[in-house]
């Protein structure tokens, strides 16, 4: 092989790498919500829109205090790395999408773990004395553990990752469509710090 042939083949390899990586990255967005200054991570491709938006622990405290939890309970919930989440089936012609949060993986430098699902929260020993109405609100404010979405169906709901405020993690999320399973990764997701901003 002559020199120009070698250069050509090398460039082809690099081009392939760039195009593959580029198409994956182009599906991912990361930014700051203009109104709140909170960060979001988003995947939009394959007929899926999945978004995580930070919730300050104080936001979560306020929400669950208003639902009837006591101070100790809301402190516990709010410091479990809670995000506002949205999952939508955007594939208008692609049929139903099913999710199972039990299969999603949270990866940190210390290893991997699972999300805290509705079922985990229901069994949390710290919340066993909480009022029934508060527990109903907690259950229904979380993204469903299992759900099937027809085209254009979506849920909003909180997801929690059981990590301390300020932690960083990668989330491998997955779904199935017509018996095929797909998974993608949101990288460098940051649990919001437990700060207490004051009104200006």
């Amino acid at each position, binding site marked *: 092989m002559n020199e*120009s042939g070698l*250069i*050509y083949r090398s*460039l*082809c390899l*690099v*081009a392939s790498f*760039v*195009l593959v990586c*580029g198409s994956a*990255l*182009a599906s*991912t*967005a*990361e*930014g*700051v*919500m*203009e109104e709140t200054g909170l960060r*979001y991570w*988003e995947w*939009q491709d394959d007929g899926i*829109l999945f*978004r995580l*938006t930070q919730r300050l622990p104080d936001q979560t405290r306020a*929400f669950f205090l*208003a*639902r009837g939890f006591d101070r100790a309970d809301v402190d516990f919930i709010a410091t479990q790395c809670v995000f506002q989440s*949205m999952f*939508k089936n955007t594939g*208008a012609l692609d049929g139903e999408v099913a999710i199972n949060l039990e299969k999603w993986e949270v990866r940190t430098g210390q290893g991997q773990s699972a999300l805290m699902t509705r079922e985990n929260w229901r069994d949390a020993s710290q919340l066993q004395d909480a009022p*029934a*109405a508060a527990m*109903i*609100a907690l*259950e*229904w*404010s979380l*993204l*469903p*553990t*299992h*759900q099937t*979405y*027809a*085209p*254009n*169906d*979506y*849920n*909003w*709901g909180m997801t929690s990752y059981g990590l301390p405020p300020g932690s960083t993690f990668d989330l491998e999320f997955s779904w199935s469509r017509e018996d095929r399973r797909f998974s993608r990764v949101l990288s460098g997701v940051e649990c919001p710090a437990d700060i207490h901003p004051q009104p200006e």
Partner: protein
Amino acid sequence: MKHIRALIVILVACMGLPPFTAAGPAENPTDSQPQLLHPVPGVVPAPEFRLQDMDGNWHRLSDYRGKVVVINFWATWCPPCREEMPAMQRAWLKFENKNIVMLAINVGEDEDTIFNFTASYPVEFPLLLDTDSAVINAWPVRGLPTTFVIDPQGTIAYQAIGSREWDDPHILKTLKALRMH
């Protein structure tokens, strides 16, 4: 050599693309999307319930047999639930006769909370109280809001997960088509 030059141009162009965008989230869930209700396959009987509304009146689903019933599960703290309430009220006003009924079942909240909510979101259709979540747990609901359309025979004909523009002409047409003639 021409191929190499072309490849270099492509590579430079690709590397110039930002790997991430920070121009804001892609879309809101209800932005400019077709308003679809999804047919529920098979014959799925709607689970019976008996619930009180805000005025203390009792409502049984079977009281409405022979009519189309739209049943919406919601909560005041649920943003997409709040978002679709005005559209549900507009749809309610457009129903031409009493053969289409709308019932919104609140999950887990008390009368005072819902009463305060209606100051900001006034609606005229019945708001029913499922305070212990027994009814929602008996229905195939996993997230809020979820809405079902029950046909005059008492079977679940359609469902929608997430909010909808309930006064959208396509949805109104779908509801009217279910009525008994």
